């Protein structure tokens, strides 16, 4: 059981974009784009915060901006935060700014993780998924919305180095339904990247 999350509320101005955020934990930095309700269950964040520094961007600033504005301004914001490189998590509609950042500043993003990604439907705003060069993990629930599952499949198809995993029995937003399954996959991917597919738990029953 992870410890309760100790949030450190902050505010940041970057090129006219006002972003509220909170920090938690210590370690390699992870930027989180929650969904528009800011919904990401604490147990999952708490688990990640045990080994990572979480910077969870709050609302509405990021979502009022277009993906282009995010792509243009967020790298500056990261510099202001002293972050050269970070991993990025986007949840539901938070997948849009997460993808925009990964496409605009691939050198700044180590790993990209999308949970139940809801991608924009219109052509102009649609992210150039083939432009994502970052190792990517997409999690969708087996009872997720058809849009999120379709978004996950599209990412798997278009992003060069993308892994799609189904969280069995989870609906949208999936982290609340099966937090342990989500946090295990997320933490292992943050730590091991593409190698998280290698199973290294001992299979010895008794020595």
């Amino acid at each position: 059981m992870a410890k309760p999350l100790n949030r450190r509320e902050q505010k940041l101005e970057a090129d006219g974009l006002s972003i509220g955020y909170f920090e938690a934990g210590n370690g390699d930095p992870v930027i989180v784009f929650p969904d528009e309700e800011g919904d990401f269950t604490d147990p999952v964040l708490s688990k990640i915060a045990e080994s990572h520094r979480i910077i969870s961007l709050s609302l509405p600033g990021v979502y009022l901006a277009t993906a282009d504005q995010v792509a243009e301004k967020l790298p500056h914001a990261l510099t202001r935060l002293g972050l050269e490189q970070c991993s990025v998590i986007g949840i539901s509609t938070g997948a849009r700014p997460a993808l925009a950042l990964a496409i605009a500043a691939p050198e700044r993003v180590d790993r990209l993780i999308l949970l139940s990604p809801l991608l924009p439907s219109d052509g102009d705003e649609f992210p150039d998924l083939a432009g994502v060069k970052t190792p990517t993990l997409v999690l969708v629930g087996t009872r997720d919305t058809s849009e999120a599952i379709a978004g996950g499949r599209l990412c798997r198809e278009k992003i060069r180095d993308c892994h799609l995993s189904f969280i069995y029995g989870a609906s949208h937003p999936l982290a609340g339904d099966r937090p342990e399954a989500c946090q295990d996959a997320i933490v292992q991917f943050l730590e091991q990247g593409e190698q998280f597919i290698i199973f290294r738990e001992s299979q010895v029953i008794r020595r």
Partner: protein
Amino acid sequence: MIAGFFNTVGYAGPWASNAWPTPPVFCDREAASRTMHRAMDQVLLADELGFDWISVSEHHYSPRILTPSPMIFAAGITQRVKRAKIAILGPLLPLSNPVRVAEELAMLDVMSEGRIVVLFLRGTPNEILVYRANPDESREITQEGIELILRAWTEPQPFGWEGRYFNYRMVSVWPRTFQEPHPRVFSSGNTPDSIPFAARNHLGLALSFMPLSEIQHRVELYKTEAAKAGWQPTASDVVYRFFGHVAETDEDARKNVGDVRLDLGQFFGMNPAVLKQLIGDRPMHIHSMERPFLCGGPAAVVDQVGALREAGVGNLDMAFTWPGLSHEQQLRSMECFASRVIPQIRAL
């Protein structure tokens, strides 16, 4: 009405013990080989007689059914039978790696050019002991396994599975099934609590070895649950597995099956205290059967099938075995059913 032939692949040698597990020392190697040849001959006969499908099942550690791997026997059938469907009713998921099951069934579907039908099961209570699964979790394991298999058959790209009981980081099944999107899948409704799962997932309902009143009750429940999920099952969505015996006359049929009862103790043949623990709250319908479910001359059996149809069953999966019946009597019963009953029940 679909008429399926359930090939139990029962041991052809003398049964020296009814215990479960049956000690391997009682298995004569020559008789085991003879069993397989005899069963394949029966399969060919069923195909020739016009049965719609030939089914095999998975059971372990006894002479009752010599197909602990139904896939292997089904593979043999694909190479010999070119008309009838092959119903694998079915793989026991708590005893299996579901991805492997998805791969093997896909192979069979390709080998048979799309003639596979499948039912995924938890296994009889004793069989949970075979590969050391937890009996208290067998239903949940089976349901997760079914969802994983369906996903493995339909996802266009490789995927991972973060399950409660199964965890895979890379699933990408080749070959794809011949049938699109996948073979017909049934799910067990013997335990009423399992019926909502079948209905919610648009799966067929499989029932076995229970009285007509219980079939009716379960089909009604299935329809109610399917309506909640926004669809309406028909009789073609329901399969019933049972023992049957047909002879020239009602009297001949009764005489052939005699007064041999089939009861649970005999069927499972294991320590009653352990068996009670394994069964838990699962309703066991086969605790006692006085005679095969369908039994009689052709006219009587046609009526009995009509009653099944009225109860909502559209697929018969019939075993012609019964304790005391000779192999020849079983073959005659098959022939009688095919020539005198099947033509009468086709339009039901």
